[in-house]
């Protein structure tokens, strides 16, 4: 279960590249585990750390001003590639609670919504304006479906039920289990 999330106010980190895939977010060598935890150092491992395992000072998440940021702003089609939910777990373990991009990959988006990570898809102009305010504090408001920063704001959409789950901190499985009579009826009609 996730903590209820209605509003999120935070500074942000920009990873400007397009098509950042889940192999970057959480490389495959970290997937040989049977746990949902333990992905803290897996996150962007090949970008965040050098060969000796030291933090690369030039990677945006490693800069001093990135400390405490709970929002990631990225290029188009973030989270493409493998369906590994481990990528979302790795982001969450590092305190990231929202990803803002002009497009987020389908499976990643579904995984994110199940783990209290808000996928915020905004238009290109708003995205550019946000990136131009790198030190701003951003408000992601799930009640109003509005993301705002000093000097700009943008609407975003989240499917109503996923939004309800995020805001109440409940998961979909409980709902699905209540569907049992309908599921049983479907099966016997089949």
């Amino acid at each position, binding site marked *: 279960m996730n903590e209820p999330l209605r509003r999120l106010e935070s500074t942000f980190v920009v990873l400007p590249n397009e098509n950042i895939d889940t192999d970057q977010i959480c490389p*495959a060598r970290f997937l*040989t585990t049977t746990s949902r935890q333990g992905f803290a150092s897996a996150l962007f491992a090949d970008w965040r750390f050098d060969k000796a395992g030291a933090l690369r000072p030039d990677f945006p998440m490693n800069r001093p001003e990135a400390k405490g940021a709970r929002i990631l702003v990225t290029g188009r089609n973030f989270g493409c590639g493998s369906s590994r939910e481990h990528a979302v777990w790795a982001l969450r373990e590092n305190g990231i609670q929202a990803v803002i991009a002009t497009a987020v990959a389908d499976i990643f988006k579904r995984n994110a919504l199940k783990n209290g990570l808000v996928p915020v898809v905004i238009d290109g102009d708003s995205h550019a304006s946000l990136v131009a305010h790198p030190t701003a504090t951003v408000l992601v408001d799930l009640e109003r479906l509005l993301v705002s920063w000093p000097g700009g704001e943008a609407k975003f959409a989240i499917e109503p039920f996923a939004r309800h789950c995020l805001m109440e901190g409940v998961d979909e499985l409980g709902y*699905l289990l209540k569907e049992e009579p309908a599921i049983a009826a479907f099966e016997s009609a089949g």
Partner: protein
Amino acid sequence: MSSPTTLLDKVWDAHVVSPATASTPATIYIDFHLIHEVTTPQAFATLKERGLKVRRPDRTLATMDHATPTDFERKGGGVVIRDADAAAQIRALEDNCREAGITLYGLDSDRQGIVHVIGPELGVTHPGRTIVCGDSHTSTHGAFGALAFGIGTSEVGHVLASQCLLLEKPKRMSVTFNGRLSKGVTAKDLILGLIAKIGAGGAVGHVIEYRGSTIATLSMEERMTLCNMAVEAGGRTGIIAPDDTTFAYLKGRPFAPQGAAWDEAVARWRELRTDEGAVFDREVTFDASTLEPMVTYGTSPGMGVPIGGVVPEPGGDESAAKALRYMNLAPGEPLRGRPIDVVFIGSCTNSRISDLRLAASVLKGRKVASGVKALVVPGSHAVKKQAEAEGLDAIFREAGAEWREAGCSMCLAMNGDRLQPGQYSVSTSNRNFEGRQGQGGRTFLASPLTAAASAINGRITDAREFVK
């Protein structure tokens, strides 16, 4: 008369348990669930924590492929896994399947293999079915007219517990391929060509229905290659209307309907077609007849060019520039002739018998260039057996390539097979992401023909030099 609908609509409508409302998505029934060792242990754990049972073990099938080595030793009938973490995942899958009563084709089974190779091979993949798996390339099964897509581990848990998913309906996209592929050009080139055209995010939010005159000329295995990489274009999945080629492939397979049930099924399956006049949200057409063999040069599957082409200018595109830095390639450089270190022939994209036959047709009587490591990894145990019966393994071995057990192998770096930092490979797999085949490794995606020809020359090679 009801309005014309697409293939996606037909399969979707037949699986609605509860329709969507203003505040809830549709509950969609999942006919079949494929599972493997890497994305399931946490899902089984969730079920246990909540005191839930696997609802339909009979609609679930397990195998192991991702973390499993392809050079394991068989000792005393058992299999020895050297990596402790991989061994633990494998054990967890064995335990979870035993407790739940799920059929598991493990390393000791002659039905084991890459999950997307064995599903069709066993006849589990039926037209009109909804099929999911905790793996993005579940799209492969769309080649049969199934609505098949990858899910994350939470959703694996949902399906285990309820046999359903809560889904918003994806948008409809049609890709019409016209014309016949020319000699030396394969289905892999076709999909790389499409992704180069529409981009790695070109189909986000959509299910791609592949249509057009080209499709009728393709075998099931070629169609699987096309659907496999729909996800590399950002699509939720790919789907192809079933036809006689589909039925001929499925007939007589272990999990295909038999006898009278077969005839009934085929009659039903013939209805699974997009109606004349049905509307798609997006339509793309693609001339297959003028296509050249394709090769990627960057770190996204959309960064592909014809094999005679050069590395394009990134322009102002910082993502493209970063990719070229990672690949250590300069704009204007030709791809053909570029030296390589490794050739990987395998993965759920290109590890079926027809792929191995293509590779063998080039490697027969020739040698892998010295200093090049070539790996041929069959997609399943059954493919391995078939290849050996045809003598393909001998062709590969005599050429100097390694012939392995079935599995994902070097498609992803988590089972011992991997590139070393800085190495270049020509790979028949589906992803050229940074580090996908090993930290610091650099991948050129291409067809089995191109991969085999490149192995011989030790350089990226147009296979048409060899296949006259």
